[in-house]
């Protein structure tokens, strides 16, 4: 759906039901319309997003158990297709890919010419976008599309994307979207939203459209009306998921406490555990930092510039002549957490955290953003005038 006109809940159509064959028909219809359909698949002991054409690729009957520093797949008692929380990847890797060639320069007798890299051809359709991930996409929309300069590659990929959201049927121990106001219900920003209804008697997907494109697609699928019983069952799924959240982050006053406490002793304490490995920034669905690398071929006739994900946890990230501004692990963790939960609000109008819990599960030493934030929040700091320092 177009990121420029996100419809509210009002735009949603009356719910209908798709069975498993109907969901396959949805995938087929998206493929037929030229979309590169991406959905959950099993690989290397994790649920990862990859190209799919058949529902057989989905992780039927699998779920994930997640705790600090721990992610394991387990068998479910049923054959649910979306019976897990979130894997290590987010949709970021498709809309804001880990590596992207920006342009190529060709040397000439008189200088050089620079040609931008054409955008990737097929538009994406994402199957199974969780509420926290919809919020993460909306946050990256504000980063890449909302400022004075738009990211051309992100603009092209985002504008063509078709989003099939999924209301979560299970919460992991690392989940805290309910406390961030970002889930588990998909409320807006999708083309279609599904709720998986599975028990001994049925395996259906309650579907609503959130955009004209979604409604048009739904109209050609084999659906049947959803009665009040199905709607109530979908509400029960969301209530159960919300109650199953393993974690909670209290954001009340958190921004001010973080910005007032750059010398809090907790930063030293967490730095003693943090490996500065950058895992948290790579699995985070909103972390957007990149670097660029310049390459030439051996003859020096062609030079390319490649943009790559970067992380504020690397020593190189803040390097200026004379050394890195943030030389210590303490300063890098402080930068990440303070940016994510405080400065982000000054910069983009919302927290940079959506409560997906990936940084907790994929931290090799199990550092928990909710625990670190709570520790800083517990101690009042001296009031320091902060906020943007712009010259305007």
């Amino acid at each position: 759906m177009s990121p420029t006109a996100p419809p509210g809940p009002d735009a949603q159509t009356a719910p209908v039901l798709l069975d498993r064959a109907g969901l396959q028909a949805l995938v087929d219809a998206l493929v037929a319309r030229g979309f590169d359909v991406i959905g959950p698949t099993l690989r290397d002991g994790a649920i990862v997003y990859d190209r799919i054409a058949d529902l057989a690729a989905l992780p039927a009957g699998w779920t994930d158990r997640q705790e600090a520093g721990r992610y394991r797949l387990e068998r479910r008692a049923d054959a649910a297709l979306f019976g897990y929380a979130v894997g290590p990847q987010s949709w970021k890797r498709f809309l804001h890919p880990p590596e992207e060639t920006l342009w190529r320069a060709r040397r000439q007798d008189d200088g050089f010419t620079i040609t931008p890299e054409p955008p990737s051809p097929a538009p994406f359709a994402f199957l199974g976008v969780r509420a926290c991930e919809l919020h993460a996409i909306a946050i990256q929309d504000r980063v890449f599309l909302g400022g004075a300069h738009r990211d051309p590659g992100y603009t092209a990929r985002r504008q063509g994307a078709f989003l099939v959201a999924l209301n979560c049927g299970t919460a992991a121990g690392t989940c805290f979207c309910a406390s961030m106001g970002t889930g588990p219900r998909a409320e807006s920003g999708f083309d279609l939203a599904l709720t998986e209804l599975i028990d001994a008697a049925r395996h259906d997907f309650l579907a609503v459209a959130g955009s004209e494109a979604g409604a048009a697609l739904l109209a050609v699928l084999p659906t049947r009306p959803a009665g009040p019983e199905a709607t109530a069952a979908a509400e029960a799924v969301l209530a159960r998921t919300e109650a199953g959240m393993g974690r909670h982050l209290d954001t009340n006053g958190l921004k001010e406490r973080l910005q007032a406490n750059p010398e809090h002793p907790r930063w030293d304490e967490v730095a003693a555990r943090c490996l500065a490995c950058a895992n948290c920034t790579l699995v985070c669905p909103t972390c957007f930092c990149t670097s660029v690398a310049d390459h030439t071929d051996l003859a020096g006739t062609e030079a390319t510039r490649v943009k790559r994900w970067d992380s504020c946890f690397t020593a190189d990230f803040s390097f200026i002549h004379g050394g890195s501004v943030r030389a210590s692990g303490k300063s890098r963790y402080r930068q990440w957490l303070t940016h994510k939960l405080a400065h982000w609000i000054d910069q983009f109008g919302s927290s940079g955290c959506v409560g997906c819990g990936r940084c907790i599960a994929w931290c090799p030493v199990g550092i928990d953003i909710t625990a670190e934030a709570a520790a800083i929040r517990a101690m009042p700091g001296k009031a320091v005038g902060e906020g943007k320092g712009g010259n305007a």
Partner: protein
Amino acid sequence: MSAAPPAALADPMLPAPWRVRAVRRETADVVTLDLVPLASGVPCFAPGQFNMIYAYGVGEVPVSLSGDPADRSCFVHTVRAVGEVSAAIAGAAPGSVLGLRGPFGSAWPVDAAAGHDLLIVAGGLGLAPLRPAIYRVLARSERFGRIAVLYGGRGPAELLFRDELAVWGARADVTVAVTVDHADPSWHGHVGVVPALIGQIGFDPPNTVALLCGPEVMLRFTATALRAAGVAAERIHLSMERNMKCAIGLCGHCQFGPDFVCQDGPVLRYDRIAARLAVREI
């Protein structure tokens, strides 16, 4: 003061080719380049702004504009060879081509300083980003109260723009004071750090605007000295330096607290950044 938008760049990450028209050596490792565009006119820029300059196949770095904003014939950049990319740019021969994106960033509040005494305080290479402001101020100096340029360098051989400093110093409408950390036998001027010059010139602190550029430690001590002298924190403006890859607020490298130095800065107001300027490794 808002910056002029970059000149019609559909893709803000795409450098445009600019030719090196002239090269002037300033010190052993600093040169000034005059650049002219191959395909377009020279855009407007505001004093304090910077460009991203690309050396073919080597890389791209931010460099402040150091020329006269009234001169629309070229962009002037003063570059010190400190790393691979800046060495390639500083070594560019006349006639060669560099890539350029910009101008980017916030500006010195020159026009807003009209009616006030004006202190322009530079350390080392920091005189280069301030020179466009000096040109603009001196072009209509009657708009200001007393005007002073305070400049400090490591030694006489590292001072930039010495001929121009002498020309400015000879004018009746501006006071120029230069100091060095380490003198040599040729030096007959001040020896010591820049903040020490503040007490040696006449100005009216409650009615003074100060523009500061130099190493971060020099900025901290100078701002502290100005505050102690009675200059209001909101009238002190500093140009900050951070790692930059994109210059358009998208790569995240230049963050300084909630600010992106590339677009909220590089010129920032001291009252808004004083607290974080005092914290190590922000």
